[in-house]
């Protein structure tokens, strides 16, 4: 009862997920995602008329905290883990965006 996925569908999903997959990965995921979705399809047989979806299990509303100023991370600290930071300028550096 495996769902049949095409290579094009897998490539479309990979593009949405910002993943550049190798041809081997595309074939493996095509097969495995088909198996998993085929199994998961059984939920579609459950009668859910008038059943609201559960997106969280909180007993009440999320907690609010006082809207008061408090210290946050220093810029130097925030930049310290970046693979390529322009520390002096206080910026994250990335490859060229516009050609």
């Amino acid at each position: 009862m495996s769902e049949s996925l095409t290579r094009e569908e897998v490539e479309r999903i990979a593009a949405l997920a910002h993943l550049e997959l190798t041809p081997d990965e595309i074939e493996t995921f095509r097969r495995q995602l088909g198996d998993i979705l085929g199994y998961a399809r059984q939920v579609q047989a459950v009668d859910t008329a008038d059943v609201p979806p559960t997106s969280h299990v909180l007993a009440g509303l999320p907690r609010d905290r006082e809207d008061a100023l408090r210290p946050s991370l220093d810029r130097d600290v925030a930049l310290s883990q970046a693979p390529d930071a322009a520390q002096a300028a206080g910026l994250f550096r990335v490859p060229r965006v516009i050609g």
Partner: protein
Amino acid sequence: MGAPTIAAVRDAIARGETTAVTACTEALDRIAARNPELNAFLAVERERALERAASLDRLPPEAHGPLHGVPIAVKDNICTRGVVTTAASKMLAGYVPPYDATVVERLEKAGAVIVGKTNLDEFAMGSSTEHSAFGPVRNPWNADATPGGSSGGSAAAVAAGLVPAALGSDTGGSIRQPAAFCGVVGLKPTYGRVSRYGLIAFASSLDQIGPFTQTVADAALLLGVLAGADDRDATSAAQPVDDYLGALTGDLSTLRVGVPRALLEEGVAPEVLQAFEAGLQALKARGAQIVDVPLPHARYAIPVYYLVATAEASSNLARYDGVRYGYRTPDARSLKSMYLRTRDEGFGAEVKRRIMLGTYVLSSGYYDAYYLKAQQVRTLIRRDYEQAFETVDLVAMPTTPTPAFRLGEKTDDPLQMYLADVFTVSANLSGLPAISVPCGRAPDGLPIGFQFIGRPFDEATVLKAADGLERELGKS
């Protein structure tokens, strides 16, 4: 395997029989001796831990906390300030968090000494710890078996007696399943009972941090330290924290325990069923009443879980883009190709599989049929438990359908790996507290776990029943 409990370490220090430095040194020596074979720890913080222990030894007795001088390990998806935190992913290799998770602050405030960070399935996605980017963990009872996952390093560290306790995280069973496979106690608190601030997110509506210990009493003690509201996690609950240790009376005479018999009819190994029945007899001997409960939608828990958890994961893991922290591909020439290649090179196969699945079920055309439908069935699974708790105080079932499986047994077939979570995921989908407590062994010596699931924020009853079972089984 003969390591001291939390209570034993703390009391020995209080009596002047040992010091925090000695207790810490002994733990570090045990780790040094066993870790090369187990691979339970990704990082051991020897100097830092000994310095901290020495500073604890200088405190006057009146300043000792409830975990004074106790060495504890922390799963490596929980942020520790100044100590590398990788989530067992190449994506975060070398990442040094600039802040502590709330649970780490609470442990240290109570006097604990964090000795190291434990191995896990990458980003906590897996049931065997074989999906770690830094190699699998071995089960201390059998080197060919997995310790379970995703918190396999924490479970193995406690089971092998390296540390008295460890923290894990549980999204679909990642504390309880490895606890069962390794023969230790593992507690997943109610969603919101413990702050998630500083936990590297996998599926935010399901994730919860909890303890691994050798005894139920130690789990009660640790939960008392970890639980409570936190301004930095809006989903942490304001409910008062009960006296968990005080709940452990050993008297189960007013307790009604429900068993979902229909769920156990298929796919459960005979040695697991036998151990479970023996556990029920032990509860009866303590005065508990055992009744059947129907959980008609529990059979859909696995598909619902893998649709909901992967959807949340695909969103949470969008943040790893090679810009602000973590891995970046070395030679991309445009921003777009940097994103794509960083993510392909930085994530392992299981993480990519789940991101793909989650992206698929959230995408246009499939959202209603898969994601929305799964959320509706999630409601039905929750309602089953609400109804059950009108007549019983706890629901009991095995933690896992089999004892620990072999390394490599399920790595080629992700769906088979997912099916092993059949008894653990419904507590996460419903937000309920649940515990796995050791209950016998298979003929080959591998441990078997017994699971209790309780009402929201009723960890006291969950712990009381688990403690009663532990006492009764300990008599024989």
